[in-house]
């Protein structure tokens, strides 16, 4: 059995989080599963997809798995652009956009990846509608992740993506 990895550098994709108040600070939360992302440790994927339990099929499994949609998702910027507007519209939570490192077992798809392990690489926070004190506190809280955190002036999904794309270029 060959246990050697195929690659030795993480894949870097784009994704979106929500900034949520957790205890006395602000943390990153996944959008769909609302999983809190830890500081200083990778997020480990767990399959939470709904399954009708009919033995022996649909047993719990390590994430990501080929036959499932589980794993930590990230995508290219173009895919994020199509995904962001609906997420901006559905919630009052503060969206955070950023790059994420993915590693461990990774499934590469046409427009993105599903991975076993992930950690943010840089974060962009739209602060236009937050007010100065809240924005400052949120940026400060998110810097606990130990990665660059930058404010964005845009308040719409398109403006945010345009700004992020320009910064990332």
């Amino acid at each position, binding site marked *: 059995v060959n246990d050697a990895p195929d690659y030795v550098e993480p894949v870097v994709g784009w994704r979106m989080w929500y900034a949520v108040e957790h205890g006395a600070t602000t943390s990153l939360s996944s959008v769909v599963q609302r999983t809190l992302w830890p500081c200083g440790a990778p997020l480990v994927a767990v399959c939470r997809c709904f399954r009708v339990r009919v033995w022996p099929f649909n047993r719990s499994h390590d994430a990501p798995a080929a036959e499932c949609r589980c794993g930590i998702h990230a995508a290219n910027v173009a895919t994020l652009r199509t*995904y962001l507007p609906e997420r901006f519209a559905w919630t009052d939570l503060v969206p955070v956009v950023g790059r994420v490192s993915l590693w461990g077992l990774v499934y590469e798809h046409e427009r993105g990846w599903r991975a076993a392990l992930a950690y943010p690489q840089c974060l962009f926070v739209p602060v236009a509608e937050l007010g100065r004190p809240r924005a400052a506190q949120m940026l400060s809280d998110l810097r606990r992740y130990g990665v660059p955190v930058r404010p964005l002036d845009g308040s719409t999904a398109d403006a945010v993506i345009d700004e992020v794309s320009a910064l990332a270029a």
Partner: protein
Amino acid sequence: MELGKPQKVYTIEPLEDPVPTPGPDEPAEPPLERRPEPVEMPLARP
């Protein structure tokens, strides 16, 4: 996000940890001061 069809699967084991090491929130403990080495003095003649 709709990622489309899976293309391939691989494993990645980064040489460098993608998780940054935390910066010093608190000032680092100052290094212990080294006591000066005792200087050997020649014994005074009585």
